[in-house]
């Protein structure tokens, strides 16, 4: 079932179209990640879905209903902002209870629901504390609790993990994923961090120049990027794009290959090492061959000027930055 459908929506700021005729269908119970570097309009897209901003053209459907003209409070969505947007004048309990209060639920019902979710997220002890007096990780849980406490059709999360330290981040990712499984809800999650996207997402939409340049799971994006831009954006080390002629391939364009798609025992090509660095537990060697520069994952550290022999095990052909054909 389709949960959310964006039908060719455009949003302009001045003359610049931040979102440009973007269309996507997001399924029920899906964990969909909007991935892109800063300034690509990820947050704008989320705000359009939430109804905080209005698209200049196009339609938005939630559960098959056209909500394009509806204000945020009529869309039945929950959202967690990057800065958590906890109401500083209310304590933790009041923050979580706020959406329920807006639904005009009875006091007992509100109490019951807030306590349930607080217990689930491990913040029951701090319910009566002011939100300004709790830690960043706790604030993040409170924001999450406030979103989960009612039963919205959609959860929107705008970089909710960018403000917490790496250690809590890991447990937060685990928590998010288990919550999504447990509550069987549709999550739309914005991030610029491709590792986060890889862990959380069922599908990832890579946002570039106002459109989803590619939608798929992380493996598809990593293994077979549809454009040069995605190849360079996804992964710890960008994909290599070099002139096909250099590798004696008869093709007018570039070939793209990942640094690890090489065989160092098969000594077909030779390049000159320009620098090498360690990322994680691997050596990445920046190499030069004729006019082209590229990076190869190597077995050891190489000295500058040393010759490195290798062959390419897998590549894709690209014309004008777009995937041309398979191997």
């Amino acid at each position, binding site marked *: 079932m389709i949960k959310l459908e964006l039908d060719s929506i455009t949003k302009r700021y001045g003359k610049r179209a931040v979102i440009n005729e973007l269309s996507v269908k997001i399924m029920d119970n899906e964990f969909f990640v909007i991935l892109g570097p800063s300034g690509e309009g990820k947050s704008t897209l989320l705000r359009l879905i939430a*109804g905080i901003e209005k698209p200049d053209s196009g339609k938005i459907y939630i559960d098959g209903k056209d909500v394009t003209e509806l204000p945020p*409070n009529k869309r039945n*969505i929950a959202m967690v902002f990057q*800065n958590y*947007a906890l109401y500083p*004048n209310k304590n933790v309990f009041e923050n979580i209870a706020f959406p329920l209060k*807006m639904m005009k639920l009875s006091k007992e019902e509100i109490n019951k629901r807030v306590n349930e979710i607080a217990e689930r997220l491990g913040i029951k002890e701090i319910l009566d504390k002011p939100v300004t007096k709790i830690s960043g990780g706790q604030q993040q849980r409170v924001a999450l609790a406030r979103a989960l406490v009612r039963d919205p059709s959609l959860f929107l999360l705008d970089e909710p993990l960018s403000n917490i330290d790496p250690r809590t981040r890991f447990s937060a990712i685990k928590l998010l994923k288990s919550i999504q499984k447990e509550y069987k809800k549709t999550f739309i999650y914005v991030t610029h961090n491709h590792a986060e996207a890889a862990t959380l997402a069922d599908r990832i939409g890579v946002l570039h120049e106002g459109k989803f340049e590619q939608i798929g799971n992380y493996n598809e994006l990593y293994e077979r990027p549809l454009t040069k831009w995605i190849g360079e954006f996804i992964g710890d080390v960008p994909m290599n794009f070099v002139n096909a002629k250099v590798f004696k391939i008869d093709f007018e364009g570039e070939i793209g290959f990942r640094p690890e798609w090489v065989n160092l025992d098969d000594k077909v090509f030779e390049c000159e090492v320009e620098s090498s660095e360690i990322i994680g537990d691997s050596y990445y060697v920046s190499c030069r061959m004729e006019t082209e520069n590229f990076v190869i994952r190597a077995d050891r550290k190489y000295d500058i000027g040393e010759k490195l022999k290798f062959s390419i095990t897998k590549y894709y052909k690209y014309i004008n930055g777009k995937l041309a054909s398979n191997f």
Partner: protein
Amino acid sequence: MNKIIYIILVIFIIFLIYPIYVLFLVSFVPAIFTVDRLYPYQFPVALTLSNLELALSNPQMIHAVYKSLETATLVGIIAVSLGIPTAYGLSKLPEKIAYAITTILFTVNMMPSIVIAIPIAADFIKIGLFDTALGLALAQELIALPLTSFILLGTFQSIPPELEYQARVDGAGLFRSIFEVLIPLAREGIIASFLLSWMLSWDEFTFAVLISPIRPTLPVLIYLYTTRGNILEAAAFSLFLTIPVLILTVFLQKYLRGEYLGGGLKG
């Protein structure tokens, strides 16, 4: 070096406090030692409450205090209740445009009050607002409203917009999100603008003397008594004019912070 600074400070404070001191002298010392002498005593050689009793038993004075209170409170209420929507609207605009519009609001203040007050007084006679507290309050809004709009604009700008978005997403309509989230967060700015406009009206003179001359406010009454030569009573009245301002200024300090004049972000 420190000593010099302290000496300068002490001189400065004496300079500021002296007029108030003289006011107390005239109010609490028998007239024969102060206003009735060519060279008044600079120290309280004798104390009396009779000056104050004289002032308090004057029905004109009681009426003036009441009128001033009524007007000032009206000015405060109107300034805040019109200033909040004005500033909220302005805070949604790009900052440059918002401040350009606020500057335009202030242009009324660039004109001498007397130039504006005369036509207003003439028109108020026609519509029955002449010599009323409401009429005077409305005229004084010309000064108070730009100021409160400016302060409240800074206040609203200092509130992260996400808080309002969050309230909307959490199910609050526009008005509920304003009343439940924005106004509580803008509380200090709202109190500050109420107090400032209250004080502005409390000692406002030009509009008051032209729009409400028959049953005057306290500053006008003091002026009338002074010109008639009743300096003793005028001084006692002045005490009543000064004391609330002193108290409110102390209050105001608590709420006057740089942040809503600057519009910076706070978490």
